[in-house]
C-alpha cells in the first residue's frame, strides 16, 4: 500500500529557500540530513498550523553540482512526489508493471529505511520510501 508522504523540492540553498516557505507557515520538522550516496543534503519542513498542507523535503546538492542540476537549471522546484510504502519492493514492481521505469532501484537510505525512484509514463518522478520503525 502506498500513502502520500511528501513533495520533493530542489533548491540551490535550503537555507535561502526556507525563508520563503516560512512566509507560508512552514518550519523545519527534522534536522538536516546528508545522503552521500545520493549526493544530496535534505530537510523536511511542515506547515505549522494545518495538517492539510503537504510535507516538503527541501534538497540541495552536496557538492556544488549534482543530481539536482537539471531541475535547478530549468527552474523546477517541486520535482518529485513521495509515497510511503509498506512493501517497497512489491509497490515498485507493481508500478513497473504499469509502465513506470526504475531510475534508482530499492536501496537502503539515510533518512528513510529504503528508497526507490521511478518515472511514470507521464514523466512524473515518484519516490517510494519505506519508513523506519519510528515513523521516519
Amino acid at each position, binding site marked *: 500500500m502506498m500513502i502520500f508522504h511528501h513533495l520533493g523540492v530542489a533548491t540551490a540553498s535550503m537555507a535561502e529557500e526556507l525563508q520563503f516557505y516560512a512566509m507560508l507557515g512552514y518550519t523545519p520538522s527534522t534536522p538536516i540530513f546528508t545522503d552521500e550516496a545520493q549526493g544530496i543534503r535534505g530537510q523536511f519542513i511542515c506547515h505549522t498550523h494545518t495538517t492539510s498542507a503537504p510535507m516538503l523535503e527541501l534538497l540541495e546538492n552536496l557538492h556544488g553540482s549534482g543530481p539536482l542540476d537539471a531541475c535547478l537549471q530549468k527552474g523546477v522546484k517541486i520535482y518529485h512526489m513521495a509515497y510511503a510504502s509498506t512493501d517497497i519492493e512489491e509497490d515498485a514492481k507493481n508500478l513497473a508493471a504499469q509502465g513506470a*521505469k526504475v*531510475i534508482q532501484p530499492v536501496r537502503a537510505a539515510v533518512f528513510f529505511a529504503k528508497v526507490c525512484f521511478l518515472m511514470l509514463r507521464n*514523466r512524473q518522478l515518484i519516490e517510494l520510501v519505506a519508513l523506519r520503525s519510528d515513523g521516519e
Partner: protein
Amino acid sequence: MTDVAAELSTVLSVVLGVSVSKDDEMIFREQPSWDSMKHIEIIMAVEEKFGISFDAEAIPRMTSQAVLLQAICEMRAAQK
C-alpha cells in the same frame, strides 16, 4: 535503418535539447544535460516512438546513439 536512425536522432534532439544528426555517434553520458532521469526519458521516448519495450536489465546498457539504434532495429526485426 536509415529512417530509424533519422527518427532516433529527432527523438534524441527533443529529449536532450541539442541538435543531433543521424550520423552522430553520441555518447549520452558526455552530454551536459544527461543524468539518470534524462536516460529514462530517452528510453521512454524511444519506446513510444518505435512501439517497443526494453527489458529493465537492458536499459542501463543503452549508453549511446549507436547502441540504441542497434537495439531498436533488432527489436523491430523481431516484431516482424
